[in-house]
């Protein structure tokens, strides 16, 4: 392979990322800051692609472009757009500055200890990675090593990551969700007033998203199911599925979506994904193996032991996808409607 001009690209992108970060922090208008952070995530995605980390880039693309900025916009919608900084005392400013500089110097002092980029002798490249690279195809018939590492060799980590997403969703529910009938807290008039515009007025957006949503969902299913061979997997596919429903929430309105996906269904399905993951693990114990050792599922799943692992990965990815999808939807609806489930952006 020819020498790639990666170093120059990385420097350019890193400078731009730094510039965007400073711009976003210096901005008083929170909406502007949110949008600049959108550009920030585009550039981060480009940095991942120049490093060849396609799965990470895909996650960054799906999360950064699809949902995170929408979450921020929904939050701003319910809180307010301008950040009026209280000017703190000068002693406090100096103290904070010293802490920031100290931490920065401390981190920089560790920099010379890092191995060089792409150094074959570095600990990352010399301990377990060669095993994964050599044995991924033999063990699980999966050419995309990232998927094997994520969902097979290190499936405990992934199980806990999925649980973290689930817990985050539960936390947001428990903080924001308000039962309208029982609530005694009245919101300020600005927020409670229903939108004055007719939500049916934007014909182009409604029809365009009506056409787009099935394609997005089809693509997301492809990403989940084809994660063995191409970048992608449960997280990315789940985020895209969630983003398609969020698009419906934005272009129609939340009530329309909640007619099909009631709150109860969304909660149950969020839990179902984690349940699928944990059940696959438990089934491996029942078949005589260790927790999440899919090889022992070969008597129920078609194919030999390696194919059983491949199918086990697929089952687990489906669980991850379901949890991530419905977590995203639940979080968005809570943020956009301030926990009341009756209106949105």
């Amino acid at each position, binding site marked *: 392979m020819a020498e790639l*001009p990666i170093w120059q690209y990385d420097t350019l992108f890193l400078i731009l990322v730094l510039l965007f970060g400073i711009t976003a922090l210096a901005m008083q*208008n929170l909406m502007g800051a949110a949008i*600049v952070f959108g550009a920030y995530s585009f550039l981060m995605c480009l940095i991942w*692609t120049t490093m060849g980390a396609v799965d990470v880039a895909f996650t960054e693309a799906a999360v950064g472009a699809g949902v995170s900025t929408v979450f921020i916009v929904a939050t701003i919608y319910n809180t307010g757009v301008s950040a009026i900084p209280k000017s703190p005392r000068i002693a406090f400013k100096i103290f904070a500055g010293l802490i920031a500089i100290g931490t920065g110097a401390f981190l920089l002092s560790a920099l010379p200890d890092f191995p060089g980029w792409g150094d074959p002798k570095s600990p990352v490249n010399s301990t377990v990675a060669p095993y994964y690279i050599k044995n991924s195809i033999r063990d699980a018939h999966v050419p995309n090593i990232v998927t094997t590492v994520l969902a097979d060799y290190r499936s405990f980590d992934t199980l806990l990551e999925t649980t973290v997403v689930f817990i985050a969703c539960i936390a947001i529910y428990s903080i924001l969700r308000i039962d309208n009938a029982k609530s005694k807290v009245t919101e300020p008039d600005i927020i409670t*007033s229903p*939108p004055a515009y007719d939500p049916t007025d934007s014909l182009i957006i409604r029809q365009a998203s009506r056409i787009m949503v099935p394609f997005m969902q089809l*693509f997301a299913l492809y990403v989940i199911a084809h994660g063995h061979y191409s970048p992608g997997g449960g997280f990315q596919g789940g985020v895209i599925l969630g983003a398609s429903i969020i698009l419906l929430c*934005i272009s129609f309105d939340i009530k329309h979506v909640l007619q099909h996906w009631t709150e109860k269904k969304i909660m149950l399905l969020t839990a179902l994904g984690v349940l699928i993951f944990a059940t696959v693990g438990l089934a491996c114990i029942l078949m005589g193996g260790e927790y999440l050792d899919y090889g022992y599922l070969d008597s129920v799943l078609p194919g030999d032991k390696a194919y059983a692992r491949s199918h086990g990965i697929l089952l687990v990815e489906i669980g991850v996808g379901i949890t991530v999808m419905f977590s995203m939807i639940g979080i968005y609806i809570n943020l956009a409607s301030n926990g009341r489930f009756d209106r949105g952006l």
Partner: protein
Amino acid sequence: MLLVLIRVIKGPTVIDRLVAVNVIGTKSIVLILFSGILFGQLDMFVDIALGYGLLNFIVSIAASRYYQHRRSLEQKGKIS
């Protein structure tokens, strides 16, 4: 791309920034495909580009919804 970056960083209004970020998103798709050609594995990068293409516009719609709502409130005189 650098001209658009000026709009993002300086951009007098938020709307300028919104449009500029959208343009950056579109250019990112092309750049991702270019780096796919550089790596000689275009098939891996097409998926990312497709995902970008499908998701890129959601933020813009959300932001425009926000401004639509805000304008309607301003017309009613609820906020200045």
